[in-house]
């Protein structure tokens, strides 16, 4: 399995997808930006691109482009609550360093 999700994450993703009422799944990806070089992408997907791969993780279609896949192998997506704030968190074994805020990383 390329990536995994915690129960909390898959439950939230399913409800957000249902609420949106359209779309074919959830995109995980990386893009080059930020203070430490790479940043995560988390988006709804309406159509697939040519280099996309689709994985079924806990009944959710997870879409990852082939370039990002190399950096995301083995990543776990979690949904956590910190005080009043809640959101998704990536645990990525490929990441070697993160910037102070954790929003970008390098490999």
């Amino acid at each position: 399995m390329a990536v995994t999700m915690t129960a909390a994450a898959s439950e939230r993703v399913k409800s957000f997808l249902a609420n949106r009422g359209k779309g074919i799944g959830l995109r995980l990806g990386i893009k080059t930006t930020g203070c430490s070089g790479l940043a995560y992408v988390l988006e709804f997907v309406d159509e697939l691109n040519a280099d996309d791969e689709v994985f079924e993780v806990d009944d959710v279609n997870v879409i990852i482009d082939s370039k990002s896949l190399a950096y995301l192998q083995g990543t776990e997506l979690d949904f956590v609550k910190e005080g009043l704030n809640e959101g998704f968190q990536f645990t990525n074994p490929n990441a070697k360093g993160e910037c102070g805020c954790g929003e970008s990383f390098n490999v």
Partner: protein
Amino acid sequence: MALLQIAEPGQSTVPHQHRLAAGIDLGTTNSLVASVQSGLPKTLTDAEGRDILPSIVSYQQDKILVGDSAKALAIEDPQNTIVSAKRLLGRSLADIKQKYPNLPYTFSGNEDHPSIATVQGDINPVQVSSEVLSTLVERAKQALGGDLEGVVITVPAYFDDAQRQSTKDAATLAGVKVLRLLNEPTAAAVAYGLDSAQEGVIAVYDLGGGTFDISILRLNKGVFEVLSTGGDSALGGDDFDNAIVDYLVSEFELQRPLSHQLERQLLEQACRAKELLSSQDSVEVVINHQQQTLTLELSKATLNELIMPLVSKTLRACRRALKDAGVSTSDVHEVVMVGGSTRVPLVREQVGDYFKRQPLTSIDPDKVVAIGAAIQADVLAGNKPDSEMLLLDVTPLSLGLETMGGLVEKIIPRNSTIPVAKAQEFTTFKDGQTAMAVHVLQGERELVEDCRSLARFELRGIPAMAAGAAHIRVTFKVDADGLLSVSAMEKSTGVEASIEVKPSFGLEEGDIIKMLKESVTHAKGDIQARMLKEQQVEAARVVEAVQAAVQQDGNALLTDDELAAIENALAQLTKISQTSDIAQIEQAIKDVDTITASFAERRMDSSIKTALAGHSVDEV
């Protein structure tokens, strides 16, 4: 580790630049904040899990309390605890005293900008509102995990310029950027996604704790127009509770006045019974009084009987609002329910029967306005692809300025979508005129005296030129929140003057409707009056121009007879222009034109000769 939200396709942000935004329902009694996260709009709660913040601020010696903690002090320390500040926003002292004569506050400050004396000094309503806004903004920052790009704040549809400006000022004071002020009924319609339809008439029925508002909106190509508003500022769910209390008092054969404690117990039981009867057919009311236990079985049928007169009152307001809007119940496509009191089944039933359609109730009626504001804030902050249309509002009345003869030149017509900016060029009326007064007006009528004066300013430093030679560009701008600014610029020198319109009193909803109605009734007379004024202005201009020419060249170019004929024609024109016969004035202007035609030719020849003096024709 920063927490992430799911973005729309292609709308992921780079780190540290998340476009966080929130919608705020700044209510009279209660306020809420909501935001869209991972595509889902929801209200944000405080650390105790409460989403409703009572709009109450208590000023104490050493601290300022907001919300529930302030509410606790409202009875104990009413002078320093300010409730319902929204009712005071943008109003003059005289206005407040007339509308709410029994407020417990000591007012200070001046007539136009009243404030309330508290232990922390004089506090104005804008400051009170800004405390409520700060509390909600702080909550949103924590819940969303960062600074806000901005907020959308909702205001009643009938809020005038001064009240809207005060709301914006409160946000500025709270240190948050206002992306847009949005009408409350429009926000409710947006929450139900009604803006995605192309057109239709929507009724928004808003029955809160203490107020009732009905708004009739028309959606036209993605733009919500407010056709009419109505309601009752002293009718709400509290009156339902009071009706039940009165019934209990008479059934239990209690003699008023009762102790505060007993009144409170009755009110609590009444409120509980009302809420339970939304889902069951009867409820037992238990009151402990003088070591006795009084009980009573209250049925849904009895409750309905008790509150029916109040519900009927709201329906009468609906009928008036529809009439004002010029539509009938069959034109209404959707009915949106807002406010906690719309949970009462009888209200839903009666509203459904009246409009002959099932009202929309699936979104929590206490939260629906904040949810709509959050959706709009998300779009304005740039989290949606460009294809999603922005919701627009419109100007309720035309905006224009005064021109010669007391006429109104409309620059921005009524129902223009905002934001809008329009410019028009004007010129000077007299030779050597160096200043111009700009008088900004609002209304549909043709004459200044029939419209509402919003502001006046002067453009000075226009270079002395012949009448009609200066080019003065007057620009009217209405920003996204409906606030007007006007500027005037003389093009050759670039001298400029401008004004932001912040009238101390705005128009009441009733005034707007009245002004619109009058413009229709008086349409024909107004146009006649306008044509007459125009001809009179033209006559005065002709007389002045000819007199100036005669003074300059008359001796050189005219015979005595010609001069006498011209003076005679001018005198005739001056006399006729005092009458109200448009055709005659027009004829007299033509007569002057004919008589002065050869004089004009000679002047032209002579000025060409002067220009060519000393040059040969070949040079030209």
